[in-house]
């Protein structure tokens, strides 16, 4: 059946800001869908609140709305755009839930919008645990015994039947949110309350535990002719009990016989049919008892997912793209396989390599969180690696993580378990943590048997044996080295085939990493490149999607074209996420336009950059020097772009240049110099600018001396860090000492950077483009929160909402001077702190900043595309679009205010304090645009799902230094009609200022009923709570935590609170507008 002609306009809902459980994979899927449906001649209406996405680029859809993903906004957009269809399956759980709600309310029917891909009944059947269970029973498939409960009484009865351990999953949540395994009564009660709260429908599924069973996933597709195919099978190395997003997974399945696999395949066909997913992709999870082969169905996602993105990258079969085509009427047999071009997409990809995915965690940013993996997802990103064998792909995946480990080496202290005793190792093995791989390796070193480790971890012996063999080889190499022998070429070759990095090898021998590299060159032990072709070489492939392996035949076809290599940003992590992938993708698109062959290197399977459609050539490889160098040697590019992928490629710049390749844009010298404090001070002095008083410290003594000289408070951080890692504001000696004890470990040999903390300063980000002669100021972003809150976490506005034109002009001048002095070619970001009388330069980053996509969207300028052209030699005057150029003279005014606001993962980390500081904690961001700043701010609150109340009670409690301003806030609050509840100190202060109707309330330590009781009982609708000092922070922890969990908007800075008030004021008076990007441009 050809494509439908009765549909002209299709609404696609994105997944919103990056959060744990929903990352760039939905930009990848959404962007693919937009692209292909537009090609098919459909008009695409796209809604997504996340500006750092490729899908929200104006050319991707016909009508793009960067608006909050809420029912109200979607309704407005549907009413305005009148689409005939809504494709709900591409924007993760967010889009699916919203679509379901729109359909349930009858809104879609009323407006004649058809759900395509998955109908309401299918969504409900798959998502509602009870309905799903019934459906499985109907088709004769087993599910773990379970019961859905809506109250405690019922839950207790179910517990009696199922016993411990008991899996507890709240219904309709994302990334296994609120899911837990209870081992005892106490945990049971705790998780019960937590789960009820997490579930939007207040229900929990209690389930028999199949912990330790083998876990498998199948990616299934179905078309409207009821053809069903399995695109990819995935085996979780970590057995049941760990969320699949947190599990190490391997494709294809390794340890099932064909008969066992066909049972899963047949079940998948039945499930997708019974659930009634008309067209598109679904992910189905199974558990298999390793002792008996008994299979149970765990769950199904009737939409594209993180796993489907992984499956697409693992097989070369673009699930989202095909799903979009199926949704508009095509059948699988009518769609071509992109890679072979001659065969249809109606087949099942077969692999001749092994794919390993390892999740990336950011536990170091959440020190209070137990580092234990459970059914609730905690990872923030992932890497994928491809090798001809499991060992090779595992080794490559480990070094892709960029965690300071290069294999099973002991280089990094946190991955060195040599000191553990046998019994300690046993204990460690039986808990699931993100370090378990290295503990297993150490166990093998200590002579543990595979069976012992299997008993403790339940990881299939097949995987364990591979690790064991790697450790055996490690031992042989070490032994040779100890006996004074050189690294035997045969051993070296084997080690490379088994995924050992040069760096790991260097720890086992007397050779340095470079010496090993040279030895390899001499012995001709170099990687070759093989193609991901969906068909194990049965057909010729036309898409250069490659991975390295130590095997015989090299398949990379090197063209004679001018080439540029773009190095991506690796796994998502806090501080380096989708924004940088956006930049890399734009570079690829832009340089294609300039006639270059674009070559992407990256290892993050979630991204658009690793879509084989994005660049001319894709190397799916770890971003280490060892892995990048042979590609450069093979491709001989004109240059390499390192300034767009965050810190990851920057760290490689020096070695790449040293190896004889050209770094495009800003020179390596500048990149290194800008991180050098001494150089930086000289630069600031030379230009007559100011920076906060500062010092360097290599040890505790120097630090204390510096503190004495500079005076508290101080901002302190290690060199070369990302996202303000380990950055803190320190108020006294005691905490300084404490900090140094921890930080020096974290920062290896680099000195600590100590600055005087400029209190109550306004922070401003300025991003510029430069060709070395001219400078173009791309954006001046004013932060709402004062300097000291990490720029990635703060709310900011474009254009500035309070700065005077003179100040803006001065900031621009300073940024321009810096860019010229540093000879920036491409992008540069400067962070300023403004006090009443001074402008301090806090930081200069000679690279794309996190806010580049936001500015590009807000100002409608393709900044990265321009920057890329500058890097290959174009002049600013050639590439700045005429309409933008005229703004350069200093007029940064736009018709609207765009606000960027961050979202935080605190809800996933129940032990963390939800307070903002110099270390970045946010995972993603939203953009909200309105005609005024306060209204944009109010809209941003809607977009982060924390809408501001228009009336009610406000809890106000501020630190002493904020008291003066608190008066202003209180007055404003009363003017807006809010009732104020304050802690005694704050209340007293306000009363002294002749304010009436202030209710005082107990702090937590002052006895009950206290403020947390009021929060829990729903009496408080907004929290403004600023604190200082450790004790006060501890005291107010519960306030923030409760507000977070009860979804009560709360502000931990006065500036944030004040902003919120203005926003409330605006929202009380005005209606939100909706803006279509294409109308603004």
């Amino acid at each position, binding site marked *: 059946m050809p494509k439908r002609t009765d549909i002209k306009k299709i609404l696609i809902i994105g997944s919103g800001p990056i959060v744990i459980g929903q990352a760039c994979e939905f930009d990848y899927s959404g962007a693919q869908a937009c692209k292909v449906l537009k090609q098919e001649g459909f008009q695409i209406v796209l809604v997504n609140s996340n500006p750092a996405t490729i899908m929200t680029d104006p050319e991707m859809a016909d009508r793009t709305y960067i608006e909050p993903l809420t029912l109200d906004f979607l309704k407005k957009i549907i009413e305005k755009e009148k689409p005939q269809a809504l494709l709900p399956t591409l924007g993760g759980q967010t889009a699916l839930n919203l679509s379901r709600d729109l359909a349930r309310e009858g809104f879609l029917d009323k407006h004649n919008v058809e759900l395509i891909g998955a109908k309401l009944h299918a969504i409900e059947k798959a998502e509602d645990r009870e309905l799903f269970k019934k459906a499985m029973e109907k088709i004769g498939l087993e599910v773990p015994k379970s019961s859905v409960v809506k109250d405690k009484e019922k839950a207790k009865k179910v517990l009696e039947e199922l016993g411990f351990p008991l899996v507890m999953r709240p219904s309709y949540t994302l990334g296994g949110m609120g899911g837990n395994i209870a081992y005892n009564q106490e945990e049971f009660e705790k998780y019960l309350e937590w789960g009820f709260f997490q579930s939007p429908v207040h229900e929990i599924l209690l389930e028999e535990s199949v912990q330790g069973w083998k876990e498998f996933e199948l990616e299934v597709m179905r078309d409207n002719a009821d053809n069903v195919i399995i695109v990819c099978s995935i085996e979780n190395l970590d057995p049941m009990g760990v969320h699949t997003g947190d599990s190490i997974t391997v494709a294809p*399945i390794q340890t099932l016989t064909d008969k066992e696999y066909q049972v899963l395949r047949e079940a998948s066909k039945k499930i997708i049919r019974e659930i009634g997913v008309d067209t598109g992709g679904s992910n189905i999870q199974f558990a298999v008892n390793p002792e008996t082969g008994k299979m149970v169905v765990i769950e199904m996602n009737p939409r594209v997912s993180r796993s489907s993105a992984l499956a697409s990258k693992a097989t070369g079969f673009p699930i989202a793209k095909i799903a979009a085509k199926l949704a508009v009427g095509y059948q699988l047999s009518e769609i071509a396989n992109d890679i072979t071009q001659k*065969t249809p997409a109606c*087949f*099942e990809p*077969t692999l001749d390599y092994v794919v390993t995915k390892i999740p990336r965690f950011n536990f170091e940013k959440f020190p209070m969180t137990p580092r234990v993996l459970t059914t609730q997802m905690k990872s923030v990103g992932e890497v994928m690696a491809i090798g001809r064998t499991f060992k090779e792909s595992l080794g490559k995946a480990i070094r892709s993580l960029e965690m300071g480990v290069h294999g099973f080496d002991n280089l990094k202290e946190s991955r060195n378990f040599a000191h553990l005793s046998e019994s300690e190792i046993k204990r460690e093995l039986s808990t699931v943590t993100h370090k378990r791989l290295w503990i297993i390796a150490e166990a093998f070193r200590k002579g543990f048997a595979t069976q012992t480790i299997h008993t403790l971890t339940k990881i299939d012996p*097949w995987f364990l044996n591979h690790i064991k063999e790697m450790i055996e080889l490690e031992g*042989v190499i070490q032994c040779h080295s100890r006996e004074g022998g050189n690294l035997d070429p045969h051993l070296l070759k084997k080690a490379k085939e088994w995924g050992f990095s040069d760096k790991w090898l260097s720890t086992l021998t007397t050779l340095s990493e470079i010496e090993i590299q040279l030895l390899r060159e001499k012995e001709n032990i170099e990687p070759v490149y093989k193609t991901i072709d969906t068909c*194990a070489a049965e057909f010729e492939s036309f898409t250069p999607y490659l991975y390295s392996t130590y095997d015989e*035949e090299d398949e990379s076809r090197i063209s004679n074209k001018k080439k540029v290599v773009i190095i991506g940003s690796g796994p998502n992590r806090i501080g380096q996420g989708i924004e940088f992938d956006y930049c890399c993708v734009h570079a690829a698109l832009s340089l294609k336009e300039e006639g270059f062959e674009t070559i992407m290197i990256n290892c993050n399977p979630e991204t658009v950059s690793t879509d084989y459609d994005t660049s001319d050539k894709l190397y799916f490889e770890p971003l280490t020097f060892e892995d990048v160098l042979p590609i450069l040697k093979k491709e001989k590019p004109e240059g390499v772009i390192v300034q767009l992928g965050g810190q990851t490629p920057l760290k490689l710049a020096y070695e790449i240049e040293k190896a004889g390749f050209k770094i495009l844009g800003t020179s390596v010298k500048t990149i290194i110099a800008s991180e050098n404090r001494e150089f930086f001070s000289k630069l600031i002095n030379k230009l007559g600018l100011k920076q906060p008083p500062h010092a360097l410290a290599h040890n505790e003594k120097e630090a204390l001396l510096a503190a004495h000289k500079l005076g508290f408070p101080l901002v302190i951080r290690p060199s070369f860090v990302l996202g303000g890692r380990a950055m803190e504001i320190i108020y006294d000696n005691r905490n300084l000492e404490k900090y140094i004890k921890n930080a020096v470990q974290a920062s290896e040999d680099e000195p600590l950077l100590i600055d005087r903390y400029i209190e109550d300063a306004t922070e401003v980000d300025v991003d510029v483009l430069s060709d070395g002669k001219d400078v173009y100021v791309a954006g001046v972003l004013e932060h709402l929160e004062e300097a000291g809150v990490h720029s990635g976490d703060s709310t900011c506005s474009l254009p500035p909402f309070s700065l005077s034109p003179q100040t803006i002009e001065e900031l621009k001048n300073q940024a321009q001077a810096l860019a010229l002095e540093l000879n920036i070619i491409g992008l540069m970001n400067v962070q300023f702190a403004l006090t009443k009388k001074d402008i301090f330069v806090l930081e200069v980053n000679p690279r794309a900043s996190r806010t580049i996509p936001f500015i590009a969207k807000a100002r409608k300028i393709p900044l990265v595309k321009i920057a890329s052209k500058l890097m290959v030699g174009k002049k600013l005057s050639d590439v700045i679009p005429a309409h933008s150029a005229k703004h350069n003279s200093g007029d940064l005014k736009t018709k609207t205010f765009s606000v960027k606001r961050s979202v935080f993962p605190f809800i996933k980390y129940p032990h963390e304090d939800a307070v903002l500081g110099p270390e970045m904690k946010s995972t993603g961001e939203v953009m909200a645009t309105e005609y005024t700043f306060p209204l944009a701010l109010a809209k941003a609150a809607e977009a982060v799902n924390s809408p501001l109340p228009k009336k009610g009670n406000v809890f106000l409690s501020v630190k002493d230094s904020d008291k003066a301003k608190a008066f202003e806030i209180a007055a404003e609050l009363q003017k807006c009609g809010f009732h104020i509840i304050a802690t005694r100190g704050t209340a007293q202060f306000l009363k002294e200022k002749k304010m009436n109707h202030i209710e005082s309330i107990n702090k937590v330590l002052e006895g009950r009923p206290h403020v947390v009781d009021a929060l829990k009982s729903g009496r408080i609708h907004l929290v403004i709570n600023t604190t200082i000092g450790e004790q006060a922070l501890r005291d107010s922890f519960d306030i923030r935590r409760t507000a977070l969990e009860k979804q009560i908007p709360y502000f931990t800075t006065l500036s944030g609170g004040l902003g919120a008030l203005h926003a409330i004021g605006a929202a009380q008076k005005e209606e939100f507008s909706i803006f279509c990007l294409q109308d603004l441009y």
Partner: protein
Amino acid sequence: MGNLSTPISKATLLLENGNVYEGTSCGFPGTTIGEIVFNTSMIGYQEILTDPSYHEQIITMTYPHIGNYGTNEDDNESHKIWAKGFIVKNMCHTPSSWKNQKSLPQFLKEHKIVAIADVDTRSITKQIRNKGAMRALITTEKFDKEKSLKKILESPTMNLRDLAKEVTTEKSYHVTPHTPSYLVVAYDFGIKKSILKYLSERGCRILVIPASTSYKEVLDLNPDGVFLSNGPGDPASVTYAIENIRHLVGKKPIFGICLGHQLLCLALGAKTYKMKFGHRGANHPVSFLKSQKVEITAQNHGFAVEGSLEPRHCERSEAIPSPKVMRSPQSLPLLRDDKKFYGNNNFFSHINLNDGSVEGLYIKDKKILSVQYHPESSPGPLDSLYLFDEFINMMKGRQ
């Protein structure tokens, strides 16, 4: 190499075109020669090795890890390994599965099968893809390229070889289910156990007979249906079988699989040809033209059917859409629909969507059903089990 503690012995693979691959032995020591083929199934190696259709062939597995779950009694498709040799990238010596009884290397050794590991199987696959079917030699002995090449060139090619007679049962035997409803006579040209399983599950009492059994004997048994099994070799050279089938057509419901399908088509007047490198895997899309539904199929054949049937067989009551409408002209090149390929009157019922080759024949009025692929899979998807039901239906009508 699977394990550092396993002693390594070298093995060498030589292709007819002179290409040499050095690896390690993972089977029985010795030298073997056969037609080299590749199979793209990621699992199911034991079923593949024990499938009689691989008689005289050396199998390259494209998936790199083979042997992961060991071997077990249940997964045998016959009583022995028929493949002449085995080529893998990585052989697993320490399998893991509750089903495992014996590691694959041990299984290979017990069956005296020469096998080579640690070679670039993707490169080998591409050689076969580009150069077409070739003969090859694996040896664990001292390798002399000249002599080995000579040996290869002296060995027979697959063309014109009747291998069915080498693999067929010597004596006929019965397979009886609990409640037999139909008597099926099954010609054994190299029958797989799974076929017998699916037939008997559907109530067939099966008499498996040697390939050369005359049609008269079959008719004397008055079966409800006749089954023509899969098997190795060049179908055109199994002339006795073609002749016997000719006499059975129209008299009994007939169901053929793979070689059985080819023999049936030859009996009806079509031709067979040697494909460049055949179809071997578990992921081939086949369209059943009547319903336009696609099945993902298990395949294992180096010959295929083309051309017209004799006119007297071509009368049919239901129209089958032309194969060319099966693919969207916007995105995919048209399938071949030239007359040579599908004959004057297209009535082949199943078409391979990858290359348009003939995959099946279904003439309902004449109670003739045959497919090139393997509905019994083993290994592979079970999308096509309906064919066994169709066969039962054909026999039902008769009763």
